[in-house]
């Protein structure tokens, strides 16, 4: 079977049941003219990610304003799927986001959604290249609430408030929570910029969550006068070295 004849797999994400209803109705109306199949729906970001890992989709119709994790953050996590779906955002009203969408040629549908527009968007979807994560990040004025980690072919969300520290090691970042560590493929500089309100840099290769700092301790090995301070962490028996250039944070946080 050729690609064009295969049914387009569509997935719906919206926190409001009637809005999902509406999309299902309209998608059903489209089936006369377009081969498509609704492969699933979800009421929040986590649910959507879980379902999409099991059942891949070609197009995700994604509501922007949702509790906990908004559509733009979810779109970023979806980019880590083996074959990222084409995202078509749906929104009732959001001036700033819409301007940005047009600027980056990201498809969106305004609620109340019309069948004509939906049909166009679906027709275009096959030819569309997935949105780049960088662009999505620009759209999101606030930092993400979760980091998405690749793990054995799955994507796992780690809430940012659980992260104690982020440390660059070789080509990965170690993400440390009280329970365990994860490996993340992102740049420490970008993470520092995004989460500047939450983390502080204590070393060239390490960012610590401000809330996780329980105290400071003088390390024994270093003989020089100014160096040797270590960060003590809440809930984790591990010390992190502060580099000489960042010694001033000892005063700021103790």
């Amino acid at each position, binding site marked *: 079977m050729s690609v064009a004849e295969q049914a387009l797999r569509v997935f719906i994400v919206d*926190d*409001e*049941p*009637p*809005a*999902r*209803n*509406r999309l299902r*109705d309209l998608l059903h109306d489209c089936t006369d003219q377009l081969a498509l199949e609704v492969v699933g729906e979800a009421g*929040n970001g986590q649910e959507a990610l879980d379902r999409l890992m099991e059942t891949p989709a070609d197009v995700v119709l994604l509501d922007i*304003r949702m*509790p*906990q994790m908004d559509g733009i953050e979810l779109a970023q996590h979806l980019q880590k799927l083996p074959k990222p779906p084409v995202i078509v955002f749906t929104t*009732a*009203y959001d001036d700033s986001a819409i301007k940005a969408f047009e600027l980056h040629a990201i498809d969106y549908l*305004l*609620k*109340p*959604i019309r069948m004509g527009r939906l049909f166009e968007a679906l027709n275009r979807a096959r030819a569309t290249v997935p949105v780049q994560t960088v662009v999505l990040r620009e759209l999101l004025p606030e930092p993400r609430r979760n980091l998405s980690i690749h793990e054995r072919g799955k994507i796992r969300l780690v809430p940012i408030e659980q992260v104690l520290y982020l440390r660059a090691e070789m080509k990965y970042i170690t993400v440390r929570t009280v329970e365990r560590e994860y490996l993340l493929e992102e740049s420490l500089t970008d993470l520092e910029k995004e989460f500047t309100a939450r983390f502080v840099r204590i070393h060239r290769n390490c960012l610590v969550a401000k809330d996780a700092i329980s105290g400071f301790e003088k390390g024994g090995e270093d003989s020089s006068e100014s160096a040797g301070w270590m960060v003590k962490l809440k809930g984790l028996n591990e010390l992190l070295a502060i580099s000489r250039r960042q010694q001033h944070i000892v005063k700021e946080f103790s």
Partner: protein
Amino acid sequence: MSKGRSINQNALPDALPNFRNLGVALRILLISNGLALLQALLQANAWADVPQRMMQIAALLTPILLSSLLLLWVAQPRLHRLSYWRGALAVNAVAVVMTLAIYAFGGDLYRPISGDDESFEVTRYALLGAMVCSILLLYFRLRTRGLSRALDDARLQVLRARIRPHFLFNTINAVLGIVRTRPDQAETALEDMADLFRMAMSSEQDLVTVGQEIRLTKQYVALEQLRMGNRLRVDWQIRDVPDDALIPPLLLQPLLENAVYHGIEQLTQGGCINIELCRSGDDLKLKVENPCPLRAEASHHGNKVALRNIRERLDLLFDVEARYQVESGKDFYRVEIVLPYIRERRVTREMSS
């Protein structure tokens, strides 16, 4: 001009102040005594002289003020049935008559500066009384004008806040979403929407009964529940509130809309909005509390517009007699409003006259 059509005459640009309002009385006392101080400063020869002069003036002024205020308090309903200019004339007459009465019958204590020319003295006091009274009326007129402009702006903004595009488009989308499967529910939703928008777009500034406002707010909640299902729960606690108590229209509903937009909608599991309405003595208390997502910095930047509008309207309608309090906790948000308890009876009587 529609005279006496509404009981919140303050909202009309050319209306006398409500002399039964505590704020109005306080303003009159403060300004009159301010003018007295000015006079004392003009007359005095030395600093030590000022308090004595002030005492002399106050001895005459205070009884005039208090008796005039009492008379105006009594005459308030009648005054408001007059046109503005007739009313102003009547108020002036009250002030002049009281001034002359205190001067004539008050004895020596109330004659601070005794001159020989009796007719000059009488004319002078009558003129002073009328002038102070006119200054006060002018002040109230300007104040009402200023606040009315704020009210017009506020109404526009309230309108926009009420027809928050987000609410309008999402609700239409939701109605479209159920129209095929549950057409009768869709019908009710559209009817509720029409009622809500009619009230929001109405230019009437009259007070409405608590019963009406509660009904409207419930219609609004029904619309939001259509979208959010059981994520939105509302607990009404109405104690000892007579149905004929009057409040400004759309006082409760915007508070609910804020609670939904900034609170419940942001929570995956939703939550319960607590609404409390109760009467205690001459006050009507209103409280709306909602849970919101846990945030380190308890800031609500988006909902300031609606809240500022409510505050401005309360200032205009009730001056110092209404109180307003916001408490923004880590995971909850609470607004409390206290207004004077007014009953419908007064309005209907005035409207029929």
